[in-house]
């Protein structure tokens, strides 16, 4: 069975869809149906309101998730009341979502629920560590990149990426775009001492000098037009706490003495630069690293777009796998 054993090596997994209808839910179902619930304690949740019975944006059907008996799950109060499973409540948290508080329960029969868990990054981290305290071996987060959710899936140790025709109906474009995201997910971690210096900063742009002293750049964000890199000759690493955008990388690249700087972001979800800009920056000797990183276990594809267009599954899997050097699965076909 593809990649199930790989998942069990880690304490947490997020399943990330590159676009709606890229088969994220199918992937989650596939994983949940195959994990050994009787020997491992497993908890699942979703970031934000992601459990509408009918997708609010595209009006396509959004199925409930089937949980095997014994699995733990976190969802909002409103969705808990709609559950179609016998389940035992184990926690009602202070974490609030637009659908009420987040509750955690254990399925006592096989049944269906709508998942809508913590909607903030801090809330998700709290939930994950609470689950760990309760003796849960593996937490699974159903995450979305295209949604405006502040909860980053990068807090999990491992990740599965779902892509497909919904992301692009041109095979080559789809492969290129997906390969770029894979490249970002796979960015190296910053060195331990650099991570320690930057980890507690959550606002602004900061840099470390050769002697390990921390300085703040007057520009608040990388979006600012007013960015100056004066006096940074001894800059060892530059940390952008928020979004990293093209303009900032361009400016950095054109600045003498900073071309080969180590640029650090919290995780890959903060990077909003085009493949071209990143390529030029790396070619010029620059490095891009992250504070948080998930191990990408596999990529799944859904060759069907919501408009009905279908790509050839085998060609897609083959081309993508070649480009990213990772196994690629069409789960509908596999099952």
């Amino acid at each position, binding site marked *: 069975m593809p990649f199930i054993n790989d998942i069990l090596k880690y304490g947490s997994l997020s399943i990330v869809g590159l676009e709606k209808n890229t088969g994220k839910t199918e992937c989650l179902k596939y994983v949940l149906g195959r994990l050994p619930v009787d020997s491992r304690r497993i908890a699942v949740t979703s970031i934000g309101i992601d459990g509408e019975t009918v997708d609010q944006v595209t009006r396509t059907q959004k199925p409930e998730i089937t949980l095997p008996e014994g699995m733990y799950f976190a969802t909002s109060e409103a969705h808990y*009341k709609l559950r179609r499973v016998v389940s035992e*409540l*184990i926690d009602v948290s202070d974490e609030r979502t637009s659908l009420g508080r987040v509750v955690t329960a254990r399925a006592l*029969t096989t*049944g269906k629920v709508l998942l809508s868990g913590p909607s903030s990054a801090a809330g998700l981290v709290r939930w994950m560590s609470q689950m760990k305290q309760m003796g849960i071996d593996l937490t699974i987060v159903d995450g979305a990149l295209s949604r405006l959710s502040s909860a980053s899936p990068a807090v999990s140790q491992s990740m599965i990426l779902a892509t497909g025709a919904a992301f692009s109906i041109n095979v080559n474009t789809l492969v290129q775009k997906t390969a770029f995201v894979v490249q970002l997910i796979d960015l190296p971690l910053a060195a331990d001492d650099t991570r320690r210096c930057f980890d507690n900063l959550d606002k602004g742009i900061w840099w470390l000098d050769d002697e390990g002293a921390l300085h703040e750049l007057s520009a608040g964000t990388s979006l600012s037009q007013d960015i100056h890199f004066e006096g940074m000759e001894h800059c060892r690493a530059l940390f952008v706490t928020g979004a990293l955008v093209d303009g900032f990388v361009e400016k950095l690249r054109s600045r003498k003495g900073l071309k080969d700087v180590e640029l650090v972001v919290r995780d890959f979800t903060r990077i909003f630069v085009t493949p071209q800009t990143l390529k030029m920056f790396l070619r010029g000797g620059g490095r891009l690293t992250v504070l948080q990183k998930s191990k990408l276990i596999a990529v799944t594809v859904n060759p069907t777009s919501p408009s009905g267009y279908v790509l050839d599954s085998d060609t897609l899997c083959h081309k993508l796998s070649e480009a990213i050097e990772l196994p690629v699965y069409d789960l509908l076909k596999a099952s």
Partner: protein
Amino acid sequence: MQLKNVIDSPCALRFMLDKLELQSGLARRCLLDMEMLTDAESIAACYDVLRHFARFVADTDHVHISTLLFKLQTLKDIGTTIRNLEHHATLDDIELFEVKHLAILAVDVKKLLRQHGLDQAVEVPDLDEVITILDPDGLKMASFYIYDSYCQQLKDLRTKMRQHPELSDQLLLEAGEIELEVRTDLSKQLHHFAPTIKRALLALARIDIELAKALQIKQMGLCFPVISQDGVSSFEGLFHPQVKEALETVGRTFQPVDISFGLKPTLITGANMGGKTVVLKTLTLCQYLFQFGFGIPAASATIDVKSHIFFCIGDEQSVEKGLSSFAAEMKNIDAVIKASRNERNLLALIDEPARTTNPTEGTALVTALLKVLAQADMSLILTTHYDIEPGDARCLRVKGFDNGVMNYALVEVLDGEAPHEALNIAQLLNIDPQWITLARDIVNTAAK
């Protein structure tokens, strides 16, 4: 007057609350809703409880304190659920879970309190019967669902559900109806316990509050006050925690002061930067802390209970209300005078009244204010830079510059004449010499 109404008083009451390590949101809400205590008996009772916790914090190993704190972290405000129970509503699974969780927490905390001899301090009502209702299998776990053992029929349906998953939708509907019956029955049984559950909830919040106050006493070096019997309040080693902390971060120390005052007006004069405003702020803070049952920032304190506390600090501009600083100040002091005619035993602390107007009228306003308020049944403390005829008022003066170092101590003097040290201080601050020398010439000429 609730704590939340005065929390933003310029005396920095909020600073003290922010430093309070409350474990639950419920405790914070209860504390903010607390009414100010205005009788000696309630204040004494409040400090009696706090003393138990202070002793516990002082004598107990940190591990035990943390255990209790950790338990209190799980305290949730289930007020809505309790109200539903009171109104005969049928609780849903989540609400029943909340009741069970609270009941187990109450029993656990009660056990811990007993271990440390604190059960006399705050009484947590017994909720064992509530647990029995919500834990039919005696599992003693803080989880909940409509257990099979509530109803044989439910048990059979669920067994069938496991055997025939394809029928589960139909079976779930049937089970849902039975679950509703069970929940209705459980809610009926629990209805009688609603008042007890509510008392338990408030008791747990109280424990959270008192424990946090006790920890604050230890951390900030606060003291337990004596309740004054003769209308005189006196403080030794008084300090303002926020100013003290700010000074310590820049490597300086706070000089504590001693002060006492009774029902006669007290006039404080002193050089600029002599800490007069800080003294008023601290006294206001102490009075509030006392009447809400907190530790007092002093080495020792005897405090008189007051019915109302007024703190008028001159620099509050009410631009939004369209009032100038002078108008805002006049209105505030006017409120004090009005209250002094109707109420007994007030405390008013007024910082440099009429400071923003010309010295002739300013002096007249302050002298008259002192006379008007001297008639009232109140403690009045007033600071000023004007030369005031003190009348019956007691005069205190900041010692001021002593060999180039500011001495913030207060000494009793016979008249209210304000010290003339502004020019010396300005000189020490390295203010433009041309300006200061010229000012000195003008003063000298006028003196001749």
